[in-house]
C-alpha cells in the first residue's frame, strides 16, 4: 500500500533553496567581516573570577606566621567528601594546634562547608584554578603548603549584599 505523505504547502520564499542559500551566504559573510569574538586568549588573558569562586584551599595565619587553626575538628566533621585529615596537638599552656592538617584536593568537592564552619576563619576556599601537578601525591596539600598559598580567598557570599554576614 502506498504511503500517503502529507505535503506541506509552504510559500516559495520559505521553500526556495536559492533564496535560503543567498541568505546563508550573506549571514556568514557578515560574521566573516564583523566577527563577535568572545574567545579569551588563555595564558595571556584570564577570566575575572567571581568573589564567590571556590577553588583550592588556603590556610590563613596569625601575625607570627603560624596557622590560625585551633584543631577543633569541625571541618573534618562537616566535610561531606571526607578529604580533611586532622591530628590535633596541645602545648603546655593548653593551646590546641594541628599536628597534621592535610586536604586531599582530589577528593574535595569544593562545597565550601569547611570555610563556613571554621570558628577561627582559618581555612578558606581560594579564588584560584591553575592546580596542575605532575603526580597524584602532590594533590594532598599539607599544612605548610596550605599556609604558603597566596591567592585571594573566597567570599562565599557577597559582602555588599544586605543579607550577607
Amino acid at each position: 500500500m502506498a504511503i500517503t505523505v502529507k505535503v506541506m504547502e509552504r510559500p516559495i520564499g520559505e521553500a526556495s533553496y536559492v533564496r535560503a542559500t543567498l541568505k546563508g551566504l550573506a549571514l556568514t559573510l557578515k560574521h566573516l567581516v564583523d566577527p563577535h569574538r568572545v574567545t579569551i586568549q588563555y595564558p595571556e588573558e584570564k577570566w575575572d573570577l567571581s568573589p564567590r569562586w571556590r577553588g583550592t584551599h588556603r590556610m590563613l595565619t596569625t601575625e607570627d606566621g603560624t596557622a590560625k587553626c585551633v584543631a577543633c575538628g569541625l571541618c573534618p566533621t562537616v566535610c561531606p567528601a571526607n578529604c580533611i585529615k586532622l591530628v590535633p596537638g596541645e602545648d603546655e599552656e593548653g593551646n590546641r594546634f594541628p599536628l597534621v592538617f592535610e586536604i586531599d584536593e582530589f577528593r574535595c568537592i569544593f562545597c565550601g562547608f569547611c570555610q563556613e564552619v571554621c570558628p577561627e576563619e582559618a581555612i578558606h576556599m581560594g579564588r584560584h584554578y591553575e592546580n596542575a601537578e605532575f603526580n597524584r601525591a602532590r594533590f594532598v596539600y599539607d599544612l605548610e603548603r596550605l599556609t604558603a598559598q597566596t591567592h585571594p580567598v573566597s567570599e562565599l557570599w557577597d559582602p555588599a549584599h544586605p543579607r550577607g554576614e
Partner: protein
Amino acid sequence: MPPLDASQLPPSTLFFLLATVVKMLAIFTLYMVVVAYTTLAERKVSAWIQDRHGPNRVGPWGLLQVAADGLKNFMKEETMPGDVYKPLFILAPALAFCSAMIAWAVIPFGAPLPTPWGRIDLVVADLPIGFLYVLAITSLGVYGIVLAGWSSNNKYALLGGLRSSAQMISYEIAMGMSTVCVLLVAGNVSLNAIVAQQVATGWNVLILSIAAFIFLVAAFAETNRVPFDLPEAESELIAGYHAEYSGMKFSMFFIAEYANVLTASALFVSLFFGGWDIPFTRWDNAGPATVTKSLLTVAMFGFKTYSCVLFYIWIRWTLPRFRYDQLMSLGWKFMLPLALVYIVIVASAILGLDAAGVARTGWAFKGAMGSINLVLLILLFFVIDRGRLISPASSRIDRERVARIRRATDTRSTLGSGEAH
C-alpha cells in the same frame, strides 16, 4: 618596421627545454606552498565565520601552523590495517594527488615573459588540445579515491569510494557539457586561445553565466567539497574513503583535496574569468611582451584564483551537506538537461549571429550574447526558485499524483473494511 628583438621570438629548443624544467619546478614549489597555506586559510576563514580566532599560536598569526602540521604528519606512525591490499593502499594517495597536480601543466598563468634568449610562454605545456587534456586528467582523480576505498578493506571506506565514483561520474558529464559552450564561443580547445578569446569578446562569465554556474556547481561536486562531500560524510561514514589512513598518507589525501580545489579554481578562472587578463585595461594584451606585464598578469591570475578558492571556503562554511538522492537528482535531472538545453541555445545563437555576419569581436556580438544570457539567467532563477529543487522529497511529487495516490488508498481501505464485515 622595427628591428626584430630576440626577446620577442620563440626560444631555441635547448633553452625551451631548460625553461620548461624551471617552470615545472617553480610551479610545483609554489603550488605546494599555496596548497599548504590554503589549509590554513580554510581553518582561519572557518574560524572567523564562526566568531573564533583560528590557529594563532605557531608563529605570527599562526602562519607557521602549516609547517607544524606537516612535521606532525611526517613524524606520525603509519598504520597498516591487517587485510588491506598493500600496493593499491599505498598507491591511492599518490594517485589522488597527482591528477590535481598535473592538470596544472596546461593552465596559462601569465602573459609571455621576454628573456634575452627568447620569449617564454607562462604555461608549462601549451598543448593544442589543452582543455581535453584537463578533462581527461581530472577524471582520473576518482581512481585515487575509489582505490583507497576499495583497498582499505573497510565497509565505510568502500561506501565512501563508491559514492565518490557515482558522484564524480554524474557531475563530470554536466561539467563537460557546460564547457562545450565555452569551446563553441572560443572555437578552440587550447586554453591560451580561450584566454585570448575572452580578451577579445569580454569574459565568458558575462556571456555564458549559466555555463559558469553549472561548471562551478560541478566543480564543487568533483572536488568533493561541501555541499557535495558525501564521500567523506563524517556523520555517516566516519571519514569515508580515507578512514583507514594515517600519517603522511592521510596528509596526501588532505593535500589532494586542496590541490583539487586550487586546480578547479584556476580552471574556472581560465574558462570564465579571462585567465590572466587584467580587467578594464588593454595594455596587458597588446604590444610586445615585457617583464612588468608578465609579473602583473601572474599576480592578477593568482588574485582571481585565490578569490575563487576563498569562495569555495565560504560556501563550505555556509551550506549543509546534500542527501544522496538530492545529489543524484540535482546532477541527472537538473544539471545535465540544463547543460544540454544551454548548449543548443548557445550554439543556435552563435550560428545565427555568424550567419547574419556579426563579427565575434564586435559590440553587436557581445550585446546579443549578453542579452540572451540575461534573459536566460532570469528564467533560470525563476525556475529554480519555483521548482523547489533541493527540498524534501515529498514536495517534488506533483499535486495530481498525490491526489491519485490518496484516492487509491481510500478505495482500498474502504474495500478492506467491507470485506472485514
